[in-house]
């Protein structure tokens, strides 16, 4: 095996990604795939612990065959998680971009309110936000005589879109402020209005800068979607619990939750891998 010899100018210390993790504040470092996965595991453990108290039925079909048998049902539930994550992400991103732009408004009151809203939702527990949405949004509303129903899962989508909005707002504010002021000035001297400068010059340049954080946020959001099972949405977590109680077997608990965890891992890991790739690419070029 040929060993890699150090190349001049390629010293590890020059690589920006090596110092990045340490450069982040602790709170941000905690907010990643692995801590979230650990949290989910703990969450699962709490859920399955009571089941250990009961005795399992004596005759046993194989664990694998049971898992396979339940797979279509669980897959439907997982699809629901994915749907919820995509919708929350879409709504949250749209609102977050607007809120982020308002955070740099030249009007002080607008700026302050946008800042307050951002900070409020960024520092609220997601589960509490979900409960609030369930409680505050009526199950249907009447507009011009037509009734629009609001099932639980739509409320869950809205509830999860709030923290997404807040994080996105912060990312956008940071990205907008990181664009050199010369861009504003040259656009202004060409006669662009402030709104035009924002939409045609500044916002397009923020895309690259925000993309890695945005993707990371999506992975975190996806891993948080099982929270919706607590408020009665039939997601993969709720269905797993239902399947387990239908089977009534203690030895299924660990494999089945592990099975579900692996789905999340397979879905989220590529996202976070691509995110790291983009971060490395753009951190050099910007």
């Amino acid at each position: 095996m040929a060993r890699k010899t150090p190349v001049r100018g390629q010293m590890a210390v020059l690589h920006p990604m090596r110092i990045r993790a340490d450069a982040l504040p602790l709170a941000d470092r905690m907010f990643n795939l692995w801590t979230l996965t650990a949290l989910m595991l703990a969450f699962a453990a709490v859920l399955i612990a009571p089941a250990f108290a009961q005795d399992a039925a004596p005759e046993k079909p194989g664990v694998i065959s049971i898992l396979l048998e339940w797979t279509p049902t669980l897959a439907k539930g997982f699809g629901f998680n994915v749907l919820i994550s995509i919708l929350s992400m879409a709504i949250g991103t749209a609102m977050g971009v607007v809120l982020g732009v308002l955070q740099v408004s030249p009007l002080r009151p607008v700026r302050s309110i946008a800042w307050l809203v951002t900070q409020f939702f960024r520092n609220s527990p997601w589960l509490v936000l979900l409960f609030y949405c369930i409680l505050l949004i009526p199950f249907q509303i009447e507009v011009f005589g037509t009734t629009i129903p609001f099932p639980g899962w739509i409320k869950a989508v809205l509830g999860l879109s709030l923290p997404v909005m807040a994080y996105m707002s912060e990312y956008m504010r940071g990205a907008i402020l990181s664009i050199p002021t010369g861009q504003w000035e040259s656009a202004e001297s060409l006669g662009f209005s402030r709104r035009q400068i924002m939409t045609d010059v500044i916002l397009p340049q923020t895309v690259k800068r925000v993309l890695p954080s945005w993707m990371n946020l999506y992975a975190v959001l996806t891993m948080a979607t099982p929270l919706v099972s607590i408020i009665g949405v039939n997601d993969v977590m709720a269905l797993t619990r239902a399947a387990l109680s239908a089977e009534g077997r203690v030895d299924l608990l660990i494999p089945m939750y592990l099975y579900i965890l692996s789905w999340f891992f397979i879905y989220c890991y590529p996202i976070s891998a691509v995110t790291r790739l983009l971060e490395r690419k753009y951190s050099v070029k910007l």
Partner: protein
Amino acid sequence: MTWTPDQPIVSLRDVHKSFGTVEVLRGITLDVMKGEVICIIGPSGSGKSTLIRCINALNDIQSGSITVEGLEVNDPKLDKLSLRKKVGMVFQQYNLFPHKTVLQNVMMAPIKVLRQNRAEVEARARKLIAKVRLEGKEDAYPGELSGGQQQRVAIARSLAMNPDVMLFDEVTAALDPETVKEVLTTIKDLAADGMTCILVTHEMGFAREIADCVYFTDRGVIVESGPPATFFDNAQDPRTQQFLSQIL
């Protein structure tokens, strides 16, 4: 008041400008006639950039008056767009839009701001790009160009708005020595075409060659001014003499 070409196209009267408590411009008065080229020189921090930015309303002023083609720049009711259509500006750091190609950079303002027909704008943009000698670079991104090339794109981008006056703020200061010349040549061509130019520059040879009038600023006032021949060879004020002896 309507402006006629026999009046100064740009006129400053006793302009004062402060940032907080620091007075950066302390009574600037100067006139520029249509087609004239004036150069502003002076030590760093003497307010040259501020002066030129005030003409374009990128900075406001505390007192005095600035008019461009009779348009009162410091009027709070001023329609900034009508001013920006008349005045083009080129910056030291080029400030091209990095997410747009050369051609898009040049075409953007006429289409978005003036709402001109895209095909006509494109034809004009291609001519301008040729004029600054960058044919073949239409589809390149700014990041792929040298500093001198970027600066020439910035000039073409300003020209696409058909301005009557061009402001240049140390546009060669960030360039490699070998690319300075190509940008200066572009500006020379412009001046030869009769464009009114106000330049802040440290290129004394260039100023001597191109300027109709040279102004020397120090600490927010114009110390001395005159046609380049008298200015450079026969400076009266000791501050001008000292500055010239340092830089020449």
